[in-house]
């Protein structure tokens, strides 16, 4: 059998193909994004699409299951908060075609605003959850998940994590199962969640969970690994692999389905050992079950191991008192390397101006969240997707009630605006709110690695799509009179417009439009250069936070290999010390979106 080194996300995609799935949807979010980006390789067999947000993607996959199609929806952990409403309904509705909900959690918060443990959602929604520990299992559990889903008429959650999704290990490649026949017959009792029907459904769900609990005891991926000691370890997900590095001679209960917890199998395991360690990332899910089943057993879980961060080999060893994690070399003594907006980033000029004008900025989720870091320092809040607009309203109204006033702007990206900014903007219109909403439209979902969205003109499957024009939407569609569009590289234009609009006592919208600088393939940028005679080292250009600008011999200096020729620093310099070079190539400011497509997006 052919074996390939696949990432967890690639393996989930392969699993979707082999399981006979024919519909897959998602909203991109690290660490889940590459799942759909890889499922789309099978677009001949699987309909693939990005939803505008996780809720729409979830409901679209639910709809597909009504036709008997095997479906998959993928999102990052916080995405499931957005999709929580249909998640709970889906448990009652069951799944005609098998239904997999992939939640990619982020213990350690590599790229997230929190580290919630989404196994809690499976328990709350009363659906089974599978936790793979490597890429082979990531693939297998999609296939097994579809079987469980169809056998018990339930959606199945697959809980991945950053380390499972983004690590690579060997996977055996198999054949695709023939998908079930697609059919639809109206069945009111089955698909209408009216209270009178839902009451009956809830009883069915509770019975179903009992049956799945019995199944969990016999599920072949829940297994006991014999040891040579009287010590036992219960582990799931990547914590299982990390734990194997530490507890080399001990018994393991390898749990693939932490809920419903395999009670009988656990009892059998507990009889073999005197003391049990439980390794699971974030919350004590398995631990709580184990303590309930065997209250007198010596169990060591979250009383020793942390609720926060990753359960790495080092963390386990240090908590056991077997390794001192005080480093030889103190890395806090050297400069950090925080991520930053890129050279040529079309967001930089906007944040530079917001910083200068001392605005209270409610922010949002995307690359542009980096505008809150030094030296731009132009963001006050980050809550979740879409909250820039709504939090601005709350602040404004609360201040107004007390007779006070702030100079306020909300900053949101194009994809985030489509995700959940539009509804917030409706609230602003409806409640006669003031403030300036700045939509940074770089024509792509950038942070997660350039996914298409309703504003880009392409679908996930590479087909042409209508381009939603944000200015038209807000001005003509929602009727916001003071709506403007401006070029992201026009420093002075943005400054003037901001100054005007921030004074206004009503709502306004500024769409800052300029394509993401990273969308150009193999660019040949002609860089900007500094005239050292004219530079007086006032440092204003350094306050842009552009990675291409540094200093040399006490003068500003531009690293030409990084510079795109966006001209923002040229406009910011008060001493006319910066100008475009004559080097061959193009200044990015002289390009348009069409140039991106010419190069093949």
């Amino acid at each position: 059998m052919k074996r390939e080194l696949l990432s967890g996300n690639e393996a989930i995609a392969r699993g979707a193909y082999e399981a006979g799935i024919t519909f897959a949807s998602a909203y991109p979010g690290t660490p889940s994004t590459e799942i759909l980006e890889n499922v789309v390789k099978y677009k001949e067999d699987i309909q693939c699409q990005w939803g505008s947000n996780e809720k729409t993607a979830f409901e679209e996959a639910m709809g597909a299951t009504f036709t008997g199609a095997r479906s998959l929806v993928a999102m990052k952990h916080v995405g499931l908060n957005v999709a929580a409403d249909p998640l709970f309904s889906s448990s009652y509705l069951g799944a005609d075609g098998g239904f997999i909900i992939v939640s990619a959690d982020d213990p350690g918060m590599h790229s997230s605003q929190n580290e919630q443990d989404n196994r809690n959602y499976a328990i709350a929604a009363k659906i089974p959850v599978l936790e793979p520990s490597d890429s082979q299992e990531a693939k297998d559990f999609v296939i097994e998940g579809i079987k469980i889903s169809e056998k018990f008429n339930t959606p199945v959650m697959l809980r991945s994590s950053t380390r499972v999704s983004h690590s690579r290990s060997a996977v055996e490649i198999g054949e695709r199962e023939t998908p079930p026949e697609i059919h639809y017959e109206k069945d009111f009792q089955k698909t209408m969640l009216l209270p009178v029907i839902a009451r009956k459904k809830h009883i069915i769900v509770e019975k179903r969970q009992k049956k799945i609990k019995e199944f969990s005891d016999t599920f072949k991926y829940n297994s006991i690994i014999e040891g040579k000691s009287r010590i036992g370890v219960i582990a799931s997900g990547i914590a299982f692999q990390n734990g194997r590095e530490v507890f080399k001679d001990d018994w393991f209960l390898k749990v693939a389905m932490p809920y419903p917890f395999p009670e009988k199998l656990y009892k059998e395991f507990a009889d073999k050992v005197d003391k049990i360690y439980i390794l699971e990332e974030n919350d004590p899910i398995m631990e709580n079950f184990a303590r309930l089943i065997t209250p007198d057993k010596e169990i060591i879980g979250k009383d020793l191991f942390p609720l926060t961060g990753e359960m790495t080999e080092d963390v386990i060893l240090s908590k056991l008192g077997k390794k001192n994690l005080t480093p030889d070399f103190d890395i806090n003594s050297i400069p950090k390397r925080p991520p930053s907006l890129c050279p040529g980033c079309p967001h930089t000029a906007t944040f530079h101006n917001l910083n200068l004008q001392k605005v209270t900025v409610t922010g949002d989720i995307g690359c542009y969240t980096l505008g809150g870091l030094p030296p731009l320092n132009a963001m006050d809040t980050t809550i979740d997707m879409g909250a820039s607009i709504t939090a601005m309203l709350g602040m404004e109204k609360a201040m107004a009630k007390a007779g006070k006033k702030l100079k306020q702007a909300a900053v949101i990206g194009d994809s985030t605006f489509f995700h959940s900014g539009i509804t917030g903007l409706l609230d602003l219109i409806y409640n006669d709110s003031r403030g300036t909403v700045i939509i940074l439209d770089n024509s792509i979902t950038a942070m997660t690695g350039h996914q298409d969205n309703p504003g880009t003109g392409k679908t996930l499957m590479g087909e042409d799509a209508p381009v939603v024009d944000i200015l038209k939407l807000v001005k003509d569609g929602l009727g916001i009179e003071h709506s403007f569009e401006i070029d992201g590289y026009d420093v002075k234009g943005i400054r003037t417009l901001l100054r005007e609009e921030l004074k206004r006592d009503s709502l306004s919208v500024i769409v800052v439009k300029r394509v993401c600088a990273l969308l150009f393939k193999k660019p040949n940028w002609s860089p900007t250069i500094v005239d050292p005679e004219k530079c007086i080292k006032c440092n204003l250009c350094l306050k842009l936070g552009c990675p291409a600008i540094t200093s040399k011999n006490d003068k500003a200096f531009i690293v030409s290999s990084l510079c795109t020729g966006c001209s923002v620093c040229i406009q910011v310099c008060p001493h006319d010390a910066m100008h475009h070079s004559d080097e061959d190539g193009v200044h990015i400011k002289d390009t348009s979106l069409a140039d991106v497509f010419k190069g093949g997006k």
Partner: protein
Amino acid sequence: MKTIVIAGVGGQGVLTASDLLSDVLLDAGFNVKKSEVHGMSQRGGDVIATIKYGEEVFSPLPAMKNADYILAFEKLEGLRNINFLKDNGAMIVNDFVWEPLPVASGAVEYPDDIEENLKNYSSDLTLIPATDIATGLGNIRTTNVVLIGVLASKMDIDKDIWINVVKRKVPPKSVELNISAFEKGFTFNM
């Protein structure tokens, strides 16, 4: 089981190098697991990839004082990851400075004692001007292959396997260039 840590700055080709390396190890008959960092840190932040290989590999993650080899694409990033190095592990560092933003904006200084610290904490240090070598060969993008050449000279894997993987992984028209880059690294310590 052995561990290799590859460290650098987002955009330097750390992930590409780690892909090439895992192919070499697979071809050499090992079980391989690799972990990567994606997302926010790719926007100019520090990036590491870890490769573990051997007869049986469980965790794909690095542990302190556990790396047999560290390959750093930038000096500061070499020092940042020095605590992963085993007592007798090999440290291969590109003699190249990429100032992080807090340094470029003048908030802090780039340390001037990196070389000294690297020597203090590793008994087997190779400091190689890989970026200069690659630029000299005509393409700065071959920096990672120069560094991989150095690593190859320190590992007990047949040279042909390395050469074959390089040939397979790089675009056809740049095979010759990349093989030269590999050789420059391979012979650097000889």
